[in-house]
């Protein structure tokens, strides 16, 4: 599991940003849409928004390790924002805050998954 402060902070920043941006984009677009459409479109839009951000963040923090959780963060935040926006008025600030929290939660889940793989994988002992 990643323990270097530079990367832990970078991962946090990237995923919070991906979630926030996805949340704002979807909140601005999906207001008043049917809930199911808002959810699906929000997930897709959030994923795309994060995919566009990830290569830039990857320059500093490594493309693969940044891109995969950022896309999940974007999709999850977009889905949440899409559902919320379709059921009422979702302010951009609230969408950004919720999206950032979702991004941090997704990152935490990814770190746990990574720890699982590290524990399960074979270690070279020679």
């Amino acid at each position, binding site marked *: 599991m990643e323990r270097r402060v*530079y990367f832990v902070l970078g991962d946090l920043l990237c995923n919070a940003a991906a979630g926030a941006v996805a949340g704002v984009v979807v909140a601005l677009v999906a207001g008043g849409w049917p809930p199911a459409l808002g959810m699906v479109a929000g997930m897709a839009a959030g994923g795309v928004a994060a995919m566009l951000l990830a290569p830039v963040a*990857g320059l500093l923090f490594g493309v693969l390790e940044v891109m995969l959780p950022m896309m999940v963060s974007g999709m999850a935040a977009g889905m949440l924002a899409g559902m919320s926006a379709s059921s009422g008025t979702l302010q951009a600030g609230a969408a950004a805050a919720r999206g950032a929290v979702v991004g941090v939660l997704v990152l935490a889940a990814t770190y746990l998954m990574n720890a699982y793989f590290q524990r399960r994988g074979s270690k070279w002992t020679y």
Partner: protein
Amino acid sequence: MDVLTRQKWDRAAGSYDLMNGYGQELRWAPSKRRLFDRMRGRIIFASIGTGQDIQFFPPDRDITGIDISAGMLERARPRAAGYPGRLELRQIDVHELDYPDGWFDQAFTACTFCSVPRPVDGLRMLRRVLRPGGELFMFEHTGSRYFPFNLMLNLMTPLSRRFGPEMNRDTVANVARAGFEVAAVEPVYLDVVKMIRALAPAASGSR
């Protein structure tokens, strides 16, 4: 030589260090150092690209670095010149290695078999040029077996293969298909980035 692949990587050479440079190399540095510390004997490194990995090579090794792209090798030359050991660079397709059977003691790859057009054939060629019992060490990104990462990597691959690597290959299975004995697979990041150690069997002299 596979002209389309050569041209693709010649085009990518100019921006390769920017896109795969600082962040990625810093992230992977500890794992790569640990992998390359195992370098012993006569070594083939496929594909060496712009030579970003040379900084992680232990000194005083005998290494032949190959790549299909002249553009990549041009950028690798200054790095190779600074290596404190023997490091020869050659432009050659991994499918068409012209070394005798069993010439090398070890083969190393780093983000190579995400891009080789016929990975099993390329790996078979590496197996041929390895001595019986010779070791293959790989640092590779692959597809994932787990949702949602497998979905994302599958969706990205049709686009990514136009400019660079495929994101969803099953490289561990390809190593086994090529006739190697897979000895260890160590995850670096999720089940996507991994280090693989495999052995050429005693009968590795035949293709």
